[in-house]
């Protein structure tokens, strides 16, 4: 049975990654380290960011809103203090980066590409809790801005580049096409959906930042559809993300065109979810007599 997939130059022993901001070395004891296809690290920026005020989390029906605001200690601290903690992680490491504009993205990419332990870059063009300077909103809301940033990074690094896009657009496929045209090795679909929740007693938003990103099972059908729409339009691999809790969810994404998947919010509920998803996929492949997982990608039957 072959579970391995390739995203650009990145070889994954199985298609299951953990999503940025949802897995850290703190989970080592709970989830194990050796079962992941790749580990995507928490997004870093050039300079330190303090993040948004509390509350940053609000639970919603079968989902959660977050408004963390990319709290991180910046690139230098990441290289010096954070990255070494992941030495014991055997899977490839994907650094997630966010810059204010193409210049910052490029600088982050150049610096990180020099580090041997960084196997790939995920460009966070779609954090709904910050404003990017380049276009005063989310870069992934704008095909031109997306093209500009991906192009700048592509020209600056030989390692695999994954563009993480926003679902809060008229056509995810249009933005994905721009990322492909600019030289991205893959797109990750999708980041969180912008949402709100209100406390009716205090009449205040449940998040300190008023709005936040919705994740969890609530968004799975929406992300799935985004993957399918993009799959029909682009040739580069898609990494499916959005409410994946178990193997069946992951397989749905693959059938709709995802070559790999990321498990995010599920980690908070069940830190063993990624490992259980890998074994669940194996079981499914055995049951359906599938020898190579690649044959699942886009195998959705219509008509």
């Amino acid at each position: 049975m072959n579970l391995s997939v390739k995203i650009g130059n990145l070889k994954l022993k199985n298609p299951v990654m953990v999503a940025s901001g949802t897995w850290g070395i703190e989970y080592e004891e709970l989830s194990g380290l050796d079962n992941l296809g790749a580990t995507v690290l928490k997004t870093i920026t050039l300079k330190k960011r303090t993040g948004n005020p509390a509350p940053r989390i609000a639970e919603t029906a079968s989902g959660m809103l977050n408004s963390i605001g990319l709290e991180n200690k910046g690139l230098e601290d990441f290289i010096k203090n954070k990255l070494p903690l992941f030495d014991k992680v055997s899977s490839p490491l994907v650094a997630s980066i966010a810059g204010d504009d193409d210049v910052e993205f490029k600088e982050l990419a150049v610096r990180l590409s020099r580090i041997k332990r960084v196997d790939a870059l995920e460009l966070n063009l779609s954090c709904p809790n910050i404003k990017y300077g380049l276009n005063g909103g989310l870069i992934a809301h704008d095909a031109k801005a997306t093209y500009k940033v991906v192009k700048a990074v592509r020209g600056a690094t030989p390692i695999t580049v994954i563009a993480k896009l926003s679902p809060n657009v008229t056509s995810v496929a249009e933005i994905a096409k721009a990322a492909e045209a600019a030289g991205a090795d893959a797109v990750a679909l999708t980041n969180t959906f912008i949402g709100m929740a209100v406390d009716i007693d205090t009449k205040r938003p449940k998040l300190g930042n008023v709005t936040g990103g919705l994740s969890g099972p609530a968004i799975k059908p929406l992300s799935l559809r985004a993957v399918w729409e993009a799959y029909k339009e682009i040739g580069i691999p898609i990494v499916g993300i959005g409410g994946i809790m178990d193997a069946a969810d992951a397989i749905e994404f693959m059938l709709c065109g995802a070559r790999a998947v990321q498990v995010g919010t599920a980690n908070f509920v069940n830190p063993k979810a990624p490992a259980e998803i890998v074994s669940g996929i194996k079981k499914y492949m055995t049951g359906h007599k599938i020898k190579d997982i690649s044959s699942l990608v886009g195998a959705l039957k219509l008509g």
Partner: protein
Amino acid sequence: MKQLKAKILSNDKVAEDFYRMRIESAYLAKNTKPGQFVEVRCADDVDPLLRRPLGAHRISPGGIDILYEVVGKGTEILARKKKGEDLDVIGPLGNGFEINNSEASVLVAGGIGVAPMLTLAESIGHQVTRSPGHQKSKIHVIIGAKTKSNILCEKEFKNLKCNVRVATEDGSKGHKGLATDVLKKLLVTWQPGNLATIYACGPTGMLKAVAAIAKDKNIPCQVSLEERMACGVGVCLGCPVKVKTNHEYKMVCKDGPVFDAEEISW
């Protein structure tokens, strides 16, 4: 920290909307200290999705007790769980209280904030018995609640020979008013230089007031904070509290939930 299935040994209603659950786990019993918490999965399904952070209320040789208030979907499901069922928990989490060898300890609990205070009082009691130099040490407990029926654990604290004072907002028992009124009154006669420590858990407003009183009296004070959490282990950065140093955030789940009151930017 471990994720484990712990058997529910009991789950009893102790007052309107308040429940005490005992779960069996030699691991948690051995490794949990007062002020630490566990993340409990309430539903097997995805709604409610997130785990609930609940403080250890009592640590016994075979497991731990959790005292909780039914405030929403998750705790409603928890309240319906029966003896013999398994509970999916991750823990122990957080830092817990640092027990000082003080001549006097003052425990201030507001509402469900009483939950971690019982195991803290037990630990302070044990420590005092073990350290001959501090025979005179005294534990004062101040319990604040909305009304008489919400005063929890008074008997348990008295059994531990604590000096218990009560405040209710409606005056149905003890002092009519806030726990912090009682704290101020208690400290009036205390001399500067008295070796005391204040430990507090309750609503943020109460903790802020306790911190101000402690600062005024120059008494060390530890506060246990509450915040909405997702992961509970420091990964998601979802439970920030602003600290004075550089106006930065610390995480309630990993850096806390217990903080030196002086550290917090109230």
